């Protein structure tokens, strides 16, 4: 029962890494839906499988990783098992991606403008180089790069991190992609630049009418940007809800922990105390705890949590949660 306005529907995606030491279920039976024009968040600590989820959508999982099951329906088409050629025509054109590290995501030996123009020329066989250059400069202006003509021919190392990320955004949107995956786009930037980039993305989203998957470990960013959010832990979705619903009414203990660890710009942080963080660490993906993956760190854990893996339970209002507390 797919609605017409769904741009991306991931069903039961499994992305596993077949290493010498065993199988790593980096993405373990994940289902995600993105509607047209929506900004969907995926939030979770580092190592929870967020990047592997996005690279699975792009079909850029490298060995020993492999999509072991599930489907990724983009615009009705299943991307799992699609031909390489067909996937190439989608990458950078219909689905594009911004990465965490603006410092290293651009090729150091080519001018930035040329790198953006490359995407345009790849997907528009008839476009001339001059035309591509004109469009890139227009896009540079649109993403707020000052003196766009001059910036066209500078090299990445001559730009600040914030400007480089603007170049990456220009590259991602130059073909007016239907879906933009932003994998921690501001994690490497300082707070003022972060705010500017997020505002830019939100404005462009409205202007170009693209859908965005916003990956972050910071629920604060989710609150500012997203319409709907998935909370991911150790390869699994733990909770999913409308953003307002999630903040007003968080159900999963992990979500509660994440909420408490939001860095707050308005309040002066007490440096010596530091930020609240959930006790313990993300488990070793090769030796996942039995039962609920979160139980070693959960303050509500009971014996049953160590036995059976809880299922996602629908709490109504599109709010689902994976915790034994809601299993009645």
């Amino acid at each position, binding site marked *: 029962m797919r609605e017409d306005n769904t741009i991306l529907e991931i069903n039961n995606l499994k992305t596993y890494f077949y290493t010498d030491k065993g199988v790593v279920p980096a993405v373990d039976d994940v289902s995600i839906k993105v509607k047209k024009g929506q900004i969907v968040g995926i939030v979770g600590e580092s190592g929870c499988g967020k990047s592997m989820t996005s690279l699975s959508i792009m079909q850029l999982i490298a060995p020993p990783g492999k999509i072991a099951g599930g489907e990724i329906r983009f615009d009705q088409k299943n991307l799992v098992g699609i031909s390489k050629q067909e996937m190439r025509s989608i990458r950078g054109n219909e689905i594009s991606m911004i990465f965490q590290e603006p410092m*290293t995501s651009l090729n150091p030996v080519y001018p930035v403008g040329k790198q953006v123009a490359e995407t345009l020329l790849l997907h528009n066989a008839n476009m001339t180089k001059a035309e591509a250059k004109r469009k890139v400069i227009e896009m540079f202006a649109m993403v707020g790069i000052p003196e766009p003509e001059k910036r066209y021919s500078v090299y990445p190392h001559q730009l600040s991190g914030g400007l480089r990320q603007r170049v990456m955004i220009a590259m991602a949107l130059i073909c007016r992609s239907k879906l933009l995956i932003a994998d921690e786009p501001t994690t490497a930037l300082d707070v003022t630049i972060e705010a500017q980039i997020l505002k830019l993305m939100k404005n462009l989203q409205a202007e170009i009418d693209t859908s965005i998957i916003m990956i972050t470990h910071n629920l604060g960013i989710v609150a500012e940007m997203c319409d709907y959010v998935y909370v991911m832990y150790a390869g699994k979705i733990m909770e999913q809800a409308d953003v307002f619903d999630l903040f007003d009414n968080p159900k999963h203990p992990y979500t509660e922990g994440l909420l408490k660890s939001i860095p707050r710009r308005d309040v002066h942080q007490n440096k010596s105390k530091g930020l609240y963080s959930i006790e313990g660490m993300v488990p070793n993906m090769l030796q996942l705890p039995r039962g609920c993956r979160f139980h070693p760190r959960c303050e509500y854990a009971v014996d049953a949590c160590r036995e059976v893996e809880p299922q996602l339970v629908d709490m109504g209002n599109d709010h689902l949660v994976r915790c034994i507390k809601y299993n009645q």
Partner: protein
Amino acid sequence: MGAYIVKRLLISIPVIFGISLITFIMLNVIPGDPIALMMKEHISTDVVERVRAQMHLDDPAYVRFFRFVWDALHGDFGTSYKLNRSVTTLLLDAFPNTLALAMSGALVSWIIGIPAGVLSAVKKRSFLDNSIMGFSLLGVSIPVFWAGLLFQYIFSMVLGILPVSGFSGPEYLIMPAIVLGWSSAGTIARLTRSSLLEVMRNDYIRTARAKGNLEIKVILNHALKNSMLPVVTVMALQVAGLLSGAVITESVFGIPGIGRIAVNAIQSRDMPLLQGAVMFTTVLVILGNLVADILYSLIDPRIKYD
């Protein structure tokens, strides 16, 4: 950039001076009377004395050293004891032969080494990769003289399609160039492979893929240029090394180049000739380094010299 080159050349002056001093000292420590080398037996002491005086051999060493430096600055490296000809002329006459051999040898090693390294990296851990790496190990470990003799046997003796040795036409260059190139092609291939594999792990390679590039374009357009940085350094030094004389190759194939001159000079204790050859090599290696650095900055815009 111009200012940088001038600065580098200025810095190399003391280096060249130092090396000429060291060689001068070493050559003067080695025993052997040059007069005896030049003349046949049974000459009168009278003549010997006169020649010694003419050649200033009785002056103190430091005087002779500074005379050497002064003359060298004027392009005069003295006269070969053995051949009785100007060292400068001898070296300049031999240089074109060495240049032709070095450039063709280097070219062969790049034409084989770089594509082989790229293929190896792309097909990492495949049969092809293992074969290429195996061959490159052979290239590196088979002695040049042995490969030279083998080639001579096959192509001249058995097949009779190439001249055995000598140097009187382009066809004389084919075998030596392949033998010489083959031995460094292995090094270039290994270096290209490891550098390319390293570069392929970078974030910007993932970006290039995410744009919808063909994998071959990702490698050729985005990875190869970056991966050439360490390779170029080795290539420039390789050329400098070859230009200072591929001693063994020149000997095996009878090519009258710098390497042969150096070997002969050592055998006959021909001090001026040997000193001249060493100075020549020093300058070439310094220039090779400079060229490598300039190429570096042409490949990588992050490197700016000033």
